[in-house]
């Protein structure tokens, strides 16, 4: 979900979205694909461009998931922005991990475009005013070393949506005078059906399972509705309303 937020948007199966002559290809799936199950949500997204021009940097992303989509964070730990900025993902508790990902960034250096692979690490952060917060740590090393922490905050979602998240994306500078970095493609894999940690429960060391992401118990006709709002640094806004197909069987 965060990747979707970071990149632009995620849709159910496969979607090609026209975008100023280019396209945003998004693929998303639940594993296992079963109603009511603790599951993994995997997302891939990439800009397809006919010209060698990078997409404009993203400044804000808002994503609404379908009603009934749950995040069960019981027994999960949390990490903070400070720890993540100072010590990186290794400084966060193992039980605060939400997921992983990566992608390719585009750096518009003078006279050339340079593509840089990056990784993503997602963590639970302490709730704020009773609302969930997620942290994403984007890291790249070559040719430009980058470590970036962004916060996704839970927001109210209008019907027929349920869970919503919004994230402000800071602009990443590369070298003086060069354009801000943009994202060409990204992927994320969030949650899992078999995550477990040892915890002290009533004084005993017990293996507890973290459900994490939970697929809605019912799927409306036409699939799970989702919505994404992508705001770019050049002032343009892009809205998509894809659906996630209902599980078969």
């Amino acid at each position, binding site marked *: 979900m965060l990747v979707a937020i970071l990149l632009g948007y995620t849709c159910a199966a496969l979607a090609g979205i026209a975008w100023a002559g280019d396209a945003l290809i998004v693929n998303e*799936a639940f*594993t296992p694909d079963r109603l009511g199950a603790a599951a*993994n949500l*995997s997302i*891939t997204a990439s800009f397809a461009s006919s010209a060698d021009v990078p997409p404009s940097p993203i400044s804000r992303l808002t994503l609404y998931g379908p009603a009934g989509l749950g995040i069960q964070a019981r027994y999960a730990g949390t990490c903070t922005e400070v720890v993540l900025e100072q010590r*990186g*993902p*290794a400084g966060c508790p*193992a*039980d605060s*991990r939400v*997921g*992983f*990902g*990566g992608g390719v960034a585009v750096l518009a250096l003078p006279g050339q475009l340079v593509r840089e692979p990056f*990784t*993503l*690490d*997602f963590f639970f952060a302490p709730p704020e005013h009773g609302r969930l917060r997620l942290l994403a*740590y984007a*890291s790249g090393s070559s040719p430009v070393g980058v470590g970036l922490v962004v916060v996704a905050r839970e927001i109210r979602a209008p019907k027929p949506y349920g869970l919503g998240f919004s994230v402000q994306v800071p602009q990443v500078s590369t070298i003086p005078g060069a354009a801000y970095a943009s994202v060409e493609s990204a*992927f*994320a*894999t969030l949650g*899992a059906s*078999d*995550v*477990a*940690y*040892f915890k002290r429960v009533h004084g005993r060391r017990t*293996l507890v*399972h973290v459900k994490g992401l939970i697929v809605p118990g019912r799927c409306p006709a036409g699939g799970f509705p989702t919505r994404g709002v992508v705001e770019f640094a050049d002032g343009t806004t892009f809205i998509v309303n894809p659906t996630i197909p209902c599980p078969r069987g």
Partner: protein
Amino acid sequence: MSARLTPCAWLTTRARLGAALLAVPASVVLACATPARSAPTSGSQVPATIAASFHPDKLGAMGALTVTIDLAGDALGDPPLLRRSVLRLPAGLGVEIPHLRSCEPHRLQLLGARGCPAQSRLGVGRALVQAQLGSQLLGESISLWVFLGPLRNLQPTFEMLAQGYTPFDERVVLSGTVLPDNPPYGEDLVLSVPAISTLPLEPGASIASMSLTIGASRRSGRESNTTIEPTHCPSGGFPFAAELTYADGSMQDVSTATPCPR
């Protein structure tokens, strides 16, 4: 397995079974009391090591054999993706199984180690599995149990239960076979290692190290299976070797010689 052999019956099969048992763990790792570590014996980009030891270390003695294999990482620290291992055991190595019981793999998968008779348990061990997820190389400690499997085409087999708990509560059952080898080896333990998936879109996990102990140095009532150290030790020590095949098709041979008892 429903068949039960008397303490004499195992004599006819102990060499094979013993080898099979040893081979299973060995396919992943070999370790020993007086470890004799070795360097790769063939051209490979990934240096692995193998070690084996007997406890007690006495010719003809019943006890335990520990085999450990370390699969060192590549230049980036990522362990290679192991897909098959053949563990070569020294000639004369045996396994005593007083009460011949076997374990069905589907019971292991369904119920875990408690799903199979204690008499069918050949050994236990540990493994470290690693995967590069996001920016981090994450590891999971795996508990191993080795059981005597059902005969296949009159060949002894073994079943290895691999159980990880955290961060992923996963259970995998691997099946292996025992095949005859040529001197100075007695039998080979052949184990196919399936791809270890982690999360969608993320790379699979690989085995970084593995250690398995077959038999027990002290007998208990229900878990009485032991290894039998060969009665003769060749000059240079007991030979152990492993042939490792990786997902990229490359192969690596490692070998070691465990010193003869003093």
